[in-house]
């Protein structure tokens, strides 16, 4: 980022959270992940990492639902 550390809070306040910007963040992140792990000879590791995170997320889910365990 082209910002100095002292000016970081001020620059964060100037961000505008438009939907196109938010979707851009997710799109760029997913393209980076895809090109690094899936778009290769061994695309199995990329897909299985996604599935492992999905399983872990579903395991943690009851602990995030308030007082239900």
């Amino acid at each position, binding site marked *: 980022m082209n910002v100095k550390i002292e000016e970081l809070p001020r620059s964060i306040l100037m961000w505008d959270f438009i939907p196109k910007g938010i979707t851009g963040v997710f799109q760029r992140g*997913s393209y980076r992940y*895809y090109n690094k792990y*899936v*778009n*290769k*000879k061994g*695309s199995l590791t*990329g*897909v299985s990492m*996604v*599935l492992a995170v*999905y*399983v872990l997320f*579903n*395991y943690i*889910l009851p602990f*995030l*639902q*308030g007082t239900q365990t």
Partner: protein
Amino acid sequence: MNENLFASFATPTMMGLPIVILIIMFPSILFPSSNRLINNRLISIQQWLVQLTSKQMMTIHNNKGQTWTLMLMSLILFIGSTNLLGLLPHSFTPTTQLSMNLGMAIPLWAGTVFMGFRHKTKAALAHFLPQGTPIFLIPMLVIIETISLFIQPMALAVRLTANITAGHLLIHLIGGATLALMDISPSTALITFIILILLTILEFAVAMIQAYVFTLLVSLYLHDNT
């Protein structure tokens, strides 16, 4: 015990927000799109599977029926991938909810019926009376055929729901039995564990077969009506 058994079928929420929509959209991540002629392994395998399935399923239709190819292919991909993802531990399967399966079955069935009534009205109405019935049986048979027509979407939805829910429940029950038996008698626990492995293999097959059956029946209703 009762609460634990059916708790896995409750729609998931995270801090009060329903995230079930995110879980329904999750399988689409596993089917990347591509702009190239020669793709990576994942996309090539998926394209080969889609071509195999579409050739096998859509050759029986005429031109009008083949306009439904995109719909039926996305249907079988969605139901198949959702059912298979539901076999992962702790995951939520949207196709266990009758509301969702009715939401898929009724519009598709209604689409085929309306298409039949619009383009071939006489032939669509003629389906209500099979050929060669005795005259005194005609009123009753028309009623029976009407009922059997209106039961088709219900049967589609309930078949998918019941198969997937029953499979998940059986896995829960037999897994719980294996755990409980491990302290009491390890040899019986081994037998139940082998049963659990066979059941899981069956569930993998059922997941894919149910997707195929759903799509095949919709395509059959389409074939009758085009």
